[in-house]
């Protein structure tokens, strides 16, 4: 066993890469939940984004078009959820589960002939001087563009929710949809846009998996990342920056256990593979334990049906 094979710098770099898909999906789901909707279909939208992004990138040869394709794919799948929950008033939990099953099935169907292909490589930031600095260079200045984008997205969502009128309306809809309706706000339209955004973010996260993190297409490749994103939203108490911290902590655990497996620590690989999921459970438990705080931070209408009949 040789722990010196684990270099802290490359560990941090790979941590960021491992965290980004979950971060993207989680920040999208945060916006959805803030509007009072619980979309449990993140896993499905993510994997559908992974394959649609992959196909778009391979066919066009451009990773950028790939990411656009991934976002479009995730948003497209979320339309099904919108129809069911916003117009046909179906149960959100069941619809979200259905979305996950549908996403897994559709992606496997579409990806049938794409297994084993390499996607086009994504460009990395390369600033002469800065990117070559020791330690700081690889950690801050030489990632692929999507990592910077994901952090910018977190900042953008934070600004939107806390500093804009539209963000205030979205939070109001999530807090009390009847009151928002009485004030004349379009509850369904706000939620529709939020769900589409959540779908696009999840799709983007999926495309990051298939285009950069892995990078190739394999069936069921998200292995629960979408569900973990859901847990990260709870961990972050519905606050964008805390979601970022949560995603990076989670990425750290994943990378650490992979590195431990690689250097052959004397625990079975299968046990090490469990750790991300066990850590997720522990995190959920810790963050939910204070009932009062949890119920103040959570949007009050989360998962409730809205029908403007009266």
């Amino acid at each position, binding site marked *: 066993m040789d722990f010196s094979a684990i270099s802290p710098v490359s560990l941090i770099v790979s941590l960021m890469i491992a965290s980004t898909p979950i971060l993207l999906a989680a920040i999208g789901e945060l916006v959805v939940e803030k509007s009072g909707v619980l979309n449990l279909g993140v896993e499905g939208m993510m994997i559908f984004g992974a394959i649609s992004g992959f196909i778009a990138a391979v066919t066009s040869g451009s990773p950028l078009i790939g990411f656009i394709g991934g976002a479009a794919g995730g948003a497209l799948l979320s339309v099904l959820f919108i129809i069911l929950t916003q117009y046909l008033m179906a149960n959100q939990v069941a619809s979200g589960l259905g979305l996950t099953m549908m996403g897994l099935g559709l992606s496997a169907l579409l990806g049938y002939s794409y297994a084993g292909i390499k996607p086009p490589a994504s460009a990395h930031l390369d600033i002469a001087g800065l990117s070559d600095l020791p330690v700081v260079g690889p950690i801050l200045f030489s990632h692929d563009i999507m990592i910077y984008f994901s952090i910018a997205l977190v900042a953008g969502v934070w600004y939107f929710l806390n500093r804009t009128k539209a963000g205030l309306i979205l939070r109001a809809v999530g*807090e009390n949809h009847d009151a928002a309706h009485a004030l004349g706000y379009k509850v369904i339209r706000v939620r529709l846009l939020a769900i589409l955004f959540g779908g696009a973010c999840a799709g983007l996260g999926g495309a990051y998996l298939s285009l950069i993190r892995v990078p190739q297409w394999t069936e069921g490749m998200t292995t629960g990342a979408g569900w973990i994103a859901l847990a990260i939203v709870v961990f972050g108490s519905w606050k964008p920056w805390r979601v970022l911290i949560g995603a990076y902590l989670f990425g750290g655990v994943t990378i650490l256990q992979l590195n431990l497996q690689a250097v052959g620590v004397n625990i079975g690989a299968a046990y090490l593979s469990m750790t991300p999921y066990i850590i997720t459970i522990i995190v959920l438990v810790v963050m939910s334990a204070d009932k009062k705080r949890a119920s103040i931070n959570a949007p009050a209408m989360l998962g409730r049906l809205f029908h403007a009949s009266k």
Partner: protein
Amino acid sequence: MTPLLRISGLTKAYPGVVANDNVSFDIQPGEVHALLGENGAGKSTLVKAIYGLVHPDSGSMELNGSDYTPKEPRQARAAGVAMVFQHFSLFEALTVGENIALGMENAPETKALSARIRTVSENYGLPLDPDRLVGDLSAGERQRVEIVRCLLQDPKLLVMDEPTSVLTPQEVETLFHTLRKLRDEGTSILYISHKLDEIRQICDHATILRLGKVVGTCTPSEETPKSMAEMMVGTTLTAPKKTAFNPGPVLLEVHNLWLESSDPFGTSLKDVNFSLHAGEVLGIGGVAGNGQDELLLALSGEELVEHDAVHFKGEAMGDKGPNHRRVRGLQTAPEERLGHAAAPDMSLTENALLTAFEREKLTSNGFIQWDATRNFARAIVEKFDVRTPSVNNAAKSLSGGNLQKFVIGREIMQNPDVLVVNQPTWGVDASAAADIRQALLELAAKGAAVLVISQDLDELMEISDTFAVLSEGTLSKVRSAQGVTIEEIGLLMGGTEVSHAPA
């Protein structure tokens, strides 16, 4: 003079009910106009039409002489119509400032808005802190948020739907002061209420609605409450018969009851003490949100408290659940009918089973006797005149009054020794309310003890033998209901014991 708002022939029908039937009336500039009517008379529908939330089937409205057909509240606000809702349209987890910004078309940025909120609210004697969370405010303060939100838009017409139902008598005075000031500045106010005294105090003109139709107009200052009530109700009401009160043995004793509210915006109970005798009707008054729900939960057993805090017929059962208490004869009927006292989508038969299965022995070895249960439900429906096609109908298909009769009837039919009810006639039409009060009095006359929690002081004065007030989770001393004045009650509601109050 051109009326500010003219309503002509407005009609709105819902499946099975015509909410507004050819309604016409005018509101003049600078007047306080009352819209008077019972629950279900169509006041809310009319108001929603004025505010653009409901689109009338036919009829027209004119604002300042020009056509006014608001498609949505946004357009109503733009035209100068503002509304204070009966059930506040506020967001508990957002701040006062954010709540106000949401109700404005072009809200200024945060700092400027906060400054304006402070100025306007102080101008009208309604002080507010823009940075506080609405969830932490009292009901009276929440209403201020709604009013200030309206005032910031310089409305020409301010619509107020039952504004005093959540206020203490003193707060009502403050509100009236503000409304008079507004009227004197030229703002018209449409004031919806069924409280005749208030309307006589504040309104210049009144339009009276019954079953969706305008049945009369009047100048309230020239009418007596009785004459207006007759226009409103259409029939003469029989007041419940109050028999003399001979206190029997103590049935329920509550001693040092503390309960931390499980609702983050609820009110915790602090050291509540009282005892309830056979034959007694104890009325507990107070403004909503002062611990009423928590008190009911502690007595029903839904929230467990210290073992010794609740003694029922000599047995300490503070830490025992609802069914333990029910079997022994301590029954409760909470305020929320649908979703608390009754399961909305379940039939009346199933809802009868909900609380009665043990005391009425509707199960054997855990297996449900559906025939017996159906008979029990039918007996409730018959005895309490519940209007429903059959006991197989879902609870949510009943009107508020009928469901309330069923829910209270279900508890009374089980012959409780103590019955605790919260807001027994809230949102119930007048004849059903009279029936319910009569049933409670009859129960007490038979030797049971009844605890009525209500925000309707008139109701409490009518039926109570003894009286106390809940304020911020603390219960005042229980006193005889004879000779209590509204002023004393008002001070108690504000949290002051009468003996300490300044003269």
